């Protein structure tokens, strides 16, 4: 595996991969280690870290912070991946159509993405979730809606340059259909930057989700890191741990994903790596 060899040359990326592995493990085993509902009022409120059997303390209602973090990991990863998946799919379709056909279609689609990029994305996400009522679906949709333009622009750029490459023109002279050229010839050649931007988008999706949850726009039935911090902020003075640990969880997860994304980028574009 040449790819993995190149990837492993980047120490940061390996560290990221390990952290990400731990977070994924935590998310997958949350219901084993913390079988109770993380919203359940398990016991002594306001216990500090290590006190009363709470590894990371408990909040004002006696909810276990550690349990919240484990269950929150599931939420963060799930929303991050789903939102990115939707955004990447939409972005690829839009970008491919605009870049391949050019002309009016391109003009219209680019005006559309331009508009989306002008709109302050976080406020737009807040609005969408507020209008649709907070739930996993509405959060995923809102994040995807504000994220797809970046993918669309990237894919469009790749298509614009690739569609004039001679190998694509050779397919035209053979009389190949547009669908086959788009799917079979051009798309495979622009997947690597899409993979890179996609991996970085998972990180930003997690950040947006935590921001939404912090403002009280999370799914009320699901534990999330942003919600924990939002709920603990009024107790900053007396119980610093409620806000601190979930924040560290977000930081580490986002950092890990960014590191992995950069590692993928370096491995896919080895020439860029030598320069820097």
């Amino acid at each position, binding site marked *: 595996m040449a790819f993995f060899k190149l990837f492993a040359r980047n120490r940061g990326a390996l560290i990221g991969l390990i952290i990400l592995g731990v977070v994924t493990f935590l998310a997958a085993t949350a219901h084993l280690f913390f079988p109770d509902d993380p919203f359940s009022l398990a016991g002594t409120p306001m216990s500090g870290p290590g006190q009363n059997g709470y590894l990371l303390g408990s909040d004002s209602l006696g909810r276990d912070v550690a349990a919240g973090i484990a269950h929150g990991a599931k939420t963060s990863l799930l929303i991050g991946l789903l939102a990115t998946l939707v955004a990447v799919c939409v972005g690829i379709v839009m970008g491919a159509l605009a870049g391949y056909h050019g002309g009016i279609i391109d003009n219209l689609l680019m005006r559309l993405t331009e508009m989306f990029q002008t709109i302050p994305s976080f406020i737009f996400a807040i609005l969408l979730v507020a209008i649709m009522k907070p739930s996993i679906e509405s959060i995923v949709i809102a994040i995807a809606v504000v994220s797809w333009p970046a993918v669309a622009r990237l894919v469009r750029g790749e298509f614009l340059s690739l569609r004039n*490459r*001679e*190998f694509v*023109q*050779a397919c*035209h*002279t*053979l*009389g*190949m259909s547009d669908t086959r050229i788009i799917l079979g*010839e051009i798309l*495979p*050649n622009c997947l690597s930057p899409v993979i890179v931007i996609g991996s970085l988008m998972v990180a930003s999706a997690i950040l947006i989700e935590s921001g939404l949850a912090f403002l009280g726009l999370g799914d009320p039935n699901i534990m999330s890191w942003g919600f924990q911090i939002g709920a603990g902020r009024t107790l900053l003075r007396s119980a610093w741990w409620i806000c601190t640990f979930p924040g560290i969880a977000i930081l580490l997860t986002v950092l890990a994903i960014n590191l992995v994304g950069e590692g993928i980028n370096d491995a896919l574009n080895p020439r860029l790596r030598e320069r820097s």
Partner: protein
Amino acid sequence: MTQLLDIKGLDIALPANSQRPLAVSGMDLQLSTNEIVCVVGESGSGKSLTARAIMGLLPAPHVRVASGEILFNGEDLVKVSDDRLRALRGSEISMIFQEPMTALNPVMTIGVQIDEVFRFHQKMPSKERRARALQLLHDVQLPDPEQALKAYPHELSGGQRQRAMIAMALALDPKILIADEPTTALDVTTQAQVLKLIKEMQETHGTGVLFITHDFGVVADIADRVCVMQNGLVVETGTRDQVLRHPEHPYTKALIGAVPDLMPRPARPRSDETVLKVNALEKTYRSGGGLFGGKGREVHAADDVTFDLARGETLGIVGESGSGKSTVARCIVRLNDAEAGEILLDGVDLRPLGRAAMRPHRSKIQMVFQDPFASLNPRTRVGKIIAQGPIMYGATQQDAKARTLELLDIVGLDARAYDRYPHEFSGGQRQRIGIARALALEPDILVADEPVSALDVSIQAQILTLLDDIRERMNLSMVFITHDLRVAAQVCDRLAVMQRGKVIEVGPTAQVFADPQAEYTRQLLAAVPGKDWFSKPDAPKVVAAAG
């Protein structure tokens, strides 16, 4: 003549994991005042790195001088301090580059960039600096020096940019000018002018010029002495006459032999059967403009283009960049849509056909592209690249595979190529794959758009021979687009000369060469570098070893 530069036993080391440890090994070279020494070699010969080593501009720390001396007036440039080297650069030793667009800073005016040379080497009031910059631009024959001083690089043409570069390099009347392929990116008529300018400037100032090139035509035109490099080694040095007339090293012989003859090949009888007739073709490009932008610029890329192609003949379309020759080729194969005119193939006008209606005609007319690296999908195996055409038109997998293997054989590739990816092949081999793909649909007409201009000269000869063989063997007719009159002389039966979208002259190659009718054709022919040297009707064709 006094000796300026004496390179002794120069070794340039490459990074550890490179193809070879030394880019240049054991190089010896001398340069004196008032002479032009050409360093010639194909890509990868180490000629450019030699030039950079003299300037102390090797991409450190990866590439460095491992051993040897570069003596400039007795001072070893390998050992001098950075400050001393900086003081020499631009004042005693100057350099010009291949691509004047990227070699100039895009956000600074020409005036400021020339001014820097003065500012960093001499104390001079700004008024005098300006006056001298103006004089320089005047000396390099820029049309409007005042304007050029204020212009940004993108506002000048390619030739003008290179003139500005030359002005900048000669600002302080250096003893040595190093020119790294300075005319390679230019059109042939511009190239001739810039070469003339370099020669004139060199003669008036008595400069020693080290001229890096891959083109023996250029060597013939300007060199006093020649140094031939291959894979980092100097294989031959001597005066121009010695090296060009009596080359000793087999590599030099092969390189010179591969330079296409400017003597048109003997005319062949022309068939009465016309396979393709292009009639009054029109194509205009519009740029800029748009919703609010007002009127954009219009370029007439094809303006009343008319010619016909007989069965079995090769028609060359020649012209400089922007002449519209490639546009015409692309209109014929329907990659571009022409606005008016006719493209008659077997009596059917292809021009107005929609995609579906065009499809049955596609197989009859196929294209070979210029860039061997961009013309093959890097993610598709060679076998599939060639076979997908026949499969699309209904061939079974087995038939298509058999046909592909046969084609690989015809274009001179091993059958094992079938399962490999394009990046495993060299430029020349890829071009063979591209030809095989074009042949897979058994076309009547092959449109070749600059098929050899991205290749080293020794490989060019092989591909040209291959194309000629195939045309003969399969009774193909060919439209051959090229900017290179030497290449055109080798393969074309007839020529159409294009300038600014118009066909200004059509005729049998020999006739166009011997008695050009249009003024522009005469200019083009006169501009061919080394035209007096490589017209050797009886010289044996040397085909170099496979690359």
